[in-house]
């Protein structure tokens, strides 16, 4: 017997990285919000790597923080070791990654949810969602029913989850949690286009069974940088990571047992990501590669579990032990948790608009792995956008859409809803065409005003931000106004850095512009330099050095904006536009792009098809108003 248990403005199904950001954003915007989790001990769980950030993902965390999200702060609170990746490869690809204490992360996040005003955290499996007037009626396994004006689905790998380890397979969520088995049927009834994806995770190995003697050590940065613009200092790195390599014998074990892989035996139907291949996949696809790298990462301060980054597998447990033990340092390793592959239900994200609301189901949103992405950071970013939009809808405010021009988050969502995902989608710097503008160092400049406007950035923080922007402006002014005279010491330094000497006075800004020079080496020659936070110097230096490129990208942004101003009708049948190729007709009818810019990014819509759309728009100018 069901019973009516109450009403919420916004309900979030799932309390992983997407659900958490969604619920916090919604509650903070003033909506009565509920967040449901199958298991109270799984809130903010990291069932895969014990780290946050990484290439492009670090951008997402910084952007989320700049908007008022929680992931960056919590990662800082739980940090074990932090590294800025890609130093030396250029500011566009600098990415922060932190090893974190995964149990602590989960605990801190859970506590934040518990303390959040307007938010109720509940343990319950949602089994049914029914559309009702003005919202949705959701039912829990315990037969409680809640009426919610908006619902966000953030089910991760729980939805229809099925674990594979060799010949063994069983229905399960991640990390031995119960799966959500009934909800998928209800979602199909609502008409959501569901499909199966798969992902995997490596084994956790007992620390004292590993011989670290001959392994390469990987230390954190000194000093480590935080994710959050609000975190002042992280203190010292607490742990080291280690690197080992596979060898011929590892390969041999894989080759001898590949027939026992559920993927190769054809038992898994879900589509796996190319960028997160199982180890057996790497061996099979890159047969001529003699060895593969393996990172050994601690899962926390109060645990002996070690994560084997690079070695996920769905081979039988006994084979896993066999191949792990071929690796240097792991000869006597003890597996605490075996590696596994997990298959789950997710949705075709092209069914959603850029607010992450389903186009045909008003008030229903999706976020995270459910949307076909992969990764904690991708999930959190979408959770935030879905949560904000659900709340804005309830509050009757204008929707919130981030763009490719202002963020990686906007790029991620545009990719998902425009191009769709044929495999779990991971963020990469190469996915952003404007990456010299969208850097991790300037996320606050790009997004904090937006977060403030939404109401998710406190006045205090916003004032701090404005002050920082002012200081930055003054510093650039100072560099333009300050002239340095030639001196022996200066010229000696210039020559040692393989750049030309100066014979007359030169403006500081022109010296910093030289690729060979930077703030640091100019410090002895710059007596008027003010004390500023490191991030200001960083931003100023990048903006000066890359000015030409940044200007060019800004111009490209303008061009794209022009295309995005050419609006397309959302209720038009592209089949009637016979100049389009068949594939383009189908894709356009499916996606219903809002404008020419979005249409041009749909895979399967060629430049020629875009020309047809442009000609058609021009030919129908003034006539389409009625049906547009």
């Amino acid at each position: 017997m069901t019973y009516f248990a109450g009403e919420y403005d916004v309900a979030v199904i799932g309390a992983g990285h997407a659900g958490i950001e969604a619920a916090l954003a919604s509650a903070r915007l003033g909506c009565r919000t509920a967040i449901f989790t199958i298991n109270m001990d799984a809130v903010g769980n990291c069932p895969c790597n014990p780290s946050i950030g990484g290439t492009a993902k670090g951008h997402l965390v910084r952007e989320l923080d700049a908007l008022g999200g929680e992931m960056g702060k919590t990662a800082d609170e739980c940090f074990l070791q932090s590294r800025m990746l890609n130093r030396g490869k250029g500011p566009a690809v600098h990415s922060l990654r932190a090893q974190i204490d995964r149990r602590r992360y989960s605990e801190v996040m859970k506590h934040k949810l518990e303390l959040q005003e307007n938010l109720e955290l509940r343990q319950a499996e949602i089994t049914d969602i029914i559309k009702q007037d003005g919202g949705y009626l959701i039912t829990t396994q315990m037969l409680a029913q809640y009426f919610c004006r908006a619902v966000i689905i953030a089910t991760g790998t729980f939805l229809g989850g099925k674990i594979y380890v060799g010949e063994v397979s069983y229905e399960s969520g991640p990390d031995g949690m119960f799966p959500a088995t009934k909800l998928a049927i209800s979602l199909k009834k609502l008409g959501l286009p569901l499909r199966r994806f798969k992902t995997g995770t490596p084994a956790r190995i007992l620390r004292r069974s590993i011989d670290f003697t001959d392994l390469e050590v990987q230390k954190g940065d000194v000093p480590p940088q935080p994710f959050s613009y609000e975190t002042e200092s992280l203190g010292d790195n607490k742990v080291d990571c280690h690197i080992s390599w596979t060898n011929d014998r590892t390969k041999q074990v894989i080759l001898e047992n590949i027939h026992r892989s559920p993927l190769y035996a054809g038992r898994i139907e879900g589509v796996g990501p190319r960028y997160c291949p199982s180890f057996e996949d790497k061996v099979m696809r890159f047969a001529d590669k003699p060895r593969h790298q393996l990172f050994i990462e601690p899962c926390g301060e109060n645990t002996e579990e070690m994560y084997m980054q690079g070695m996920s597998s769905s081979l039988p447990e006994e084979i896993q032990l066999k191949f792990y033990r071929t690796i240097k340092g792991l000869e006597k390793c003890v597996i605490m948790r075996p590696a596994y592959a997990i298959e789950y239900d997710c949705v075709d994200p092209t069914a959603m608009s850029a607010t992450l609301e389903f186009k045909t189901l008003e008030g229903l949103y999706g976020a995270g792995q459910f949307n076909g992405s992969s990764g904690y950071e991708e999930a959190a970013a979408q959770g935030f956008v879905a949560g904000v939009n659900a709340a804005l809808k309830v509050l009757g405010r204008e929707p919130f859409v981030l763009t490719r021009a202002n963020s990686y988050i906007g790029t991620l969502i545009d990719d998902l809803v425009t191009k769709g995902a044929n495999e779990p989608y991971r963020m990469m710097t190469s996915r952003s065409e404007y990456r010299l503008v969208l850097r991790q160092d300037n996320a606050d400049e790009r997004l904090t005003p937006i977060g403030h406007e939404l109401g998710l950035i406190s006045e205090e923080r916003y004032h701090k931000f404005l002050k920082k922007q002012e200081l930055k402006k003054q510093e650039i002014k100072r560099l333009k106004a300050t002239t340095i005279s030639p001196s022996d010491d200066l010229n000696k330094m210039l020559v040692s850095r393989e750049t030309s000497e100066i014979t007359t006075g030169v403006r500081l800004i022109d010296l910093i512009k030289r690729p060979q020079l930077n703030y640091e080496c100019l410090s002895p020659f710059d007596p008027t330099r003010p004390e500023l936070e490191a991030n200001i110097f960083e931003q100023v230096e990048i903006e000066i050095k890359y000015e030409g490129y940044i200007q060019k990208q800004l111009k490209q942004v303008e061009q794209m904006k022009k295309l995005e101003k050419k609006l397309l009708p959302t209720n038009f049948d592209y089949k009637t536009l016979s100049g389009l190729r068949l594939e383009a007709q189908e894709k356009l009818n499916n996606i219903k792009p809002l404008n020419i810019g979005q249409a041009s990014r749909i895979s399967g819509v060629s430049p020629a098809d875009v020309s047809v759309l442009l000609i058609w728009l021009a030919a129908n100018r003034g006539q389409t108003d009625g049906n547009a």
Partner: protein
Amino acid sequence: MTDNRTIAAISTAQGEGGIGVIRISGDEAIETADRVFKNINGRRLSDMSGYTAAFGKIISGGEELDEAVALVFRAPHSYTGENVVELSCHGGVYITQQVLRTVLEAGAVPAQAGEFTKRAFLNGKLDLTEAEAVIDIISAKSKAAAGAAMSVKEGALRRRITGIKDDLLTLASHLSAWADYPEEDIAEVSEEMILEVCRKAGSDLENLLSTYDSGQAVKQGIDTVIAGKPNVGKSTLMNLLSGYEKSIVTDIPGTTRDIVEDTIVAGDVILRLSDTAGLRSTDDAVEKIGVDRAKKRLEQCSLLLAVFDNSSVLEEYDFELLKAAENVPAIAVINKTDLPNKLDVEKIKSYIDNIIYISAATGEGKDELIRAVSVIAGTDRLNPSEGILSNERQRLNALTALNSVKEAAEATEAGLTFDAVTVTLEEAISALLEMTGESASEEIIDRVFHNFCVGK
């Protein structure tokens, strides 16, 4: 959806060949044709099925204008995808235009330039590159141009671009994998690797771009001026080249007052000819205008055919002409070789390298002249089957790619970080992919996963 008014136009090049075709396209095309065409067997075109022909007469105001063959195409099985009638009449500029006028009076509207192709494109009959190629074929007036346009259609250009694009894509995907997977053991990208790829792509693109001007010479024609002192035989030369009389040829100096435009096919090259008035001082006001215009034209042309009289000595006008010839690509054409030589050819040689002897009266030397023209136009080296840039859009794309590749090399040499280099390389790739209709970012990502073993 589209403008479906019935349109009509002369669809054969004007002034060429014996048959003129008037094409009518649109919902009412067949009915419109019925109003002007009288079938010899009495059957109406409206009663005929697609892909059929009828012989009959074009009637205008009750009078018979010309004999014609009408070809009926029914939608969607026609060039434009609409109902189409093609009326082939006996031609002659005047008659063809009269027939068109009659068709327009019967209800069609004049087609805009390229409108048939645009409709074909909008009705899914052609893709954009094909449409562009067809427009080129239509405007191509000589063999080489038609060959170049055909080879674009068949993908010669695409193959050539793919060749250039491939190395750039491989490099960009390497750079992407290197940046996005810093912890995988991906080989370092060296400055030399980047410079090498940029150099090669740059020189390939420069070669491709250098075909554009020759390609334009083939397709659009070369702005050519024939100049020389009065009565040296300019008009006769022009008529020799063009094959029929256009200018008025008399023995009275100053007969040719206006710049007569004509288009002739000389071998593989189209010459847009101006037969200019002689360069002589005159008090005749009308003639003076002609002389001034001729002078101006002379300074701006792409090819000067300077005509000299073998049977007379160099005069003031000839020296003026020789001086002008120093500033433009020129061929000295020495006419009247059938008469005794009085001309100081050595003097001419000191101004103009190319010397051709002809007799405009007998036609002698014509082939040599045509060969010299194609050398100057660069078309002798042009092999259309290699794929050439044939329109401005393609040229701009290639130019963008070239500039980006150069910029990437400069950034690398200046010691800028590879993220800036990568972004610039991607611009080059985008420009090239735009020509072939693919999307850059996805190509690079696909290649990352194809070529590199990456992932946790």
